[in-house]
Every structure is written in C-alpha cells, then in structure tokens.
C-alpha cells in the first residue's frame, strides 16, 4: 500500500480496507502537528481549497478549515447565505464558476445525496464529501474509526452499537461501511420507524431493544435525532424517546466495563444521551472533535498529490 490512488473522497463505500488503514495511519502522524508550538507544515503550500457548505455546520467546517491551514493551503469559505445560490444558481453552475478560478480541492456539504458525485464528474478539482444528504459523511466515519482505534487499539472484533436516528443519518451509513469493512460487529438500534427497511443488507444487526444492542458493547455511538429532517411523527415525543432509547448510566451497565461512548455531534442532551453519560469518564466525544482535524489533514494530504492516476513510487533510497 503506497498511496491513495483516487481523485476524490466521495464515500467510505468506495474505499478498500488498506486505504482506510493508510488514512488512519497518516492521521496519526498528522495529530502530532497539532501539539507543536508552530502548528503548521508546508505540505499544501500554494494549494487552494474551497469549502462549499450548503448546510449549516460548525464542527465539520471549522475542522476542515483548521486542517487546511495546518497544511498551509489557502482556504476559501463560501457561505451560501451570501452566495449566488440565493439568486437561483444551480449547484453545477456554482461549482463550475468556482472551478474557473482554478482551486485544487473542493470540500462540499450539500443536502442532496449524490451532490458530491455530480461535482466529481464535472470538476477537475478533487472533491471531498463533507456530508451529502442522507448518503455519506466519510470524514466523520474516519475520525470515529480513528478514535476507536486510539482507545481500543483495533477495530476488528469489536461490538459497536449505533443508536438513534438511523433513517436520517449519513454518519450511520459511512460508519456501517467503514466498520464492517474493518471487521467490527455492528449493531444498530432505534425506534422501528427510524430503522431503514434494507439496513440488514449492509451486514449489520438491527434491533429496537436497546439492551440487546448495548449488552457487551465495546463502543456505543449515539446519533442525533434529526428533527429538522423529520416530516412525519416517528415517535410520540422527545421525552418518550429519551425514556426508551436515551443513553443513561443505568442502561450502560450491561455494556463492557471499558465501553467507549461516542457522538458525532451536535448533541441533544436529554434526548439521545444524558448529560452524565456525555460528560462521563467513558465519553470520547471531544476526542472525536480533536481527531477530526488530524483525519481531515490526512485526507487532504493524501488526495492533494495523486490526481487519481498511476504514477511513480516514492522510494526512500539514497
């Protein structure tokens, strides 16, 4: 395994286990840069990266921006509220106009599944998916995997329970692809109305009985209830949801004693997770945020050089 031979990062589904391992290993080296007094390396000097976010985001956008700056790239944030999109410009036109200014990479978040694939076909720039609709959020899954590996030393053989709004979660889809590729035992859990019909086809076990999911789990990952994407009534009330599916200390007792608690954020305290668990000793929720920068640096670095074509090996000979 000598590199990432692809132009874009559109989703985890297209990555091989070797590529995933390469990204995680590279992220490990990148993490050290964030602990230096001078938190910057010249690797992407002269490269221009456009952060094109069509949906609100604090964590992901700032994380990408910090990652880009630590690699010395020139970054440009396009805020949709002040862009021509409000004047009716299509995504493809926006992208092609940005592309005319010759950036090297575009980090895209969009509410439509497949938006990144569309740009990947029409843009010469490398496209990094920062979340597209209900489809994928690959860098989130990579940072989750990095955080698990940091804690447990491995991914394979772990029981990972993912609990919450399964239906509307692109984080879930990316995590399922990644964790199953790496050999983890993945359980998903939520109200029957929020379990996608074909979820078992992805090689996971699905249940609406939370104790089944949590029992002997090495990792418990909570997903946000995405009220903004819910048009119908999927469950009676938020309080009802918390009573049945909210992660509390009492519920965690059946998990493994060294269980790791994760949440991709933003958290709804008192809905999918209690404050005691979120701030408790097993929580790595803020580590996930720190690791996000390192993982995104790894992705930016690995995609910056390849252009997706076959090329020379860099051997360390003298």
């Amino acid at each position, binding site marked *: 395994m000598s590199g990432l031979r692809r132009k874009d990062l559109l989703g985890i589904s297209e990555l091989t286990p070797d590529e995933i391992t390469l990204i995680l290993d*590279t992220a490990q*080296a990148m993490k050290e840069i964030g602990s230096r007094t001078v938190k910057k390396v010249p*690797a992407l000097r002269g490269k221009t990266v456009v952060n094109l976010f069509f949906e609100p985001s604090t964590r992901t956008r700032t994380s990408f921006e910090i990652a880009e700056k630590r690699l010395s790239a020139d970054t440009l944030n396009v805020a949709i509220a002040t862009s021509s999109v409000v004047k009716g410009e299509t995504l493809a036109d926006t992208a092609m106009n940005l592309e005319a200014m010759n950036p090297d990479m575009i980090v895209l978040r969009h509410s439509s599944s497949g938006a990144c694939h569309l740009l990947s076909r029409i843009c010469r720039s490398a496209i990094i998916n920062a979340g597209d609709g209900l489809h994928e959020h690959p860098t989130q899954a990579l940072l989750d995997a990095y955080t698990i590996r940091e804690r447990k030393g491995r991914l394979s053989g772990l029981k990972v329970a993912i609990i919450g709004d399964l239906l509307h979660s692109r984080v879930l889809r990316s995590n399922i692809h990644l964790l199953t590729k790496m050999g983890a035992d993945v359980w998903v859990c939520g109200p029957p109305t929020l379990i996608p019909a074909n979820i078992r086809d992805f090689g996971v076990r699905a249940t609406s009985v939370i104790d089944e999911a949590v029992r002997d789990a090495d990792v418990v990952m909570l997903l946000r209830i995405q009220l903004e994407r819910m048009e119908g009534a999927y469950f009676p009330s938020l309080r009802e949801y918390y009573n049945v599916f909210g992660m509390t200390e009492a519920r965690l007792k059946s998990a493994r004693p060294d269980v790791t608690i994760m949440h991709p954020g933003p958290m709804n305290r008192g809905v999918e997770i209690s404050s005691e668990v979120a701030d408790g000793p097993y929580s790595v929720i803020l580590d996930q945020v720190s690791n996000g920068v390192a993982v995104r640096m790894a992705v930016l670095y690995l995609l910056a050089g390849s*252009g997706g074509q076959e090329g*020379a090996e860099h051997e360390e000979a003298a």
Partner: protein
Amino acid sequence: MDADRIGRTLTRIAHEIVERNKGVEDLALVGVRTRGVHIARRIGQSLKEITGHDIATGALDITLYRDDLMRQAVGPQPLVRMTEIPFSIDNRKILLVDDVLYTGRTTRAALDALIDFGRPKAIQLIVLVDRGHRELPIKADYVGKNLPTAADESVQVRLQESDGVDEVVLEQAVDPSKPGGAR
C-alpha cells in the same frame, strides 16, 4: 561496510561528539526517519557508555517538508510517519542524524522542520555515509564514511532494527531516471 565497521564508526562519532562539544551538556539527538532514528539511538547508547549521561533522542519525519512534494504530476503521496520529539529543542544543541547524505535536500527539509519545533542553540549534522553529489550548500559535521559514488549508483544502508542486518552496500540503481528515487 559490515556490522563491525558500522559499530566502530558510530563509537568513533560518539567520541568526536564528546570531544567537540566538550561534554554532552545541552545535547539532544534527532534522527531522520527511518534509519536516521536507529543510528541516533545507537549513538545515544554509545554516548551513555562514554559519559554516563542519557541523551534525549527524538525522531523526525521530513515528508511534509520535502521540496518535491506535489511537484510530480502524478503518483500517490509519500507516506507520512510519526514525528516524536518529546523534549524542547530551545537552547539545546541538536545532533541531527541521517543515514546517507546525498543531494542535501533531506537535510534542508529536516532543518526547516526542526526550526518549527523551536530555536536550538546549534544544529550539527551526523551522517553514516556521505556519498557526494550535493545540490545544496550543506556539509556534515560528523561523517562515518566518505563514499565516492556515481550518480547512477545507489547507497543502501541496512540496519538490524529495520532490515535485520547491518551493512552499507553500493548498488547499481535499477532505474536512475526514476524521479524521487534518489535523495
């Protein structure tokens, strides 16, 4: 060079370090990944045997500082490995260690990387082999062996820690035109 010769050479370099710096006060070793790190650890061991002092030793990966990064039109990125310098380099004399000094470009990258960690009092360069063909104004302070080479030859340093054997051999390069191959 065989294992005995490499061992004697590194011991000699350790003595030179002590002589030149009049002791090992304020010294720290930083090896350039991968083999520079192994050599740095061995020199650290010798210095301890000679002076009784432990010398702080770090590892530097210079990949992100390479001057040929992103300059090749195609091809995957070189692997980035961990940099581990678990001590302050401020006001210390840093002994920078690499296996082979060739164009000087790796050393240039290592100097830039080191400066990002602080402001050392001085940086001295240790190499096991100097094979000539410098492209930058860089000179080693301690040289294990000067080995005159042709441009189409390659110097292979193999060490127990990474290659299972201690030896330095001169080989005909497989493809001298290959970019990025020789540094």
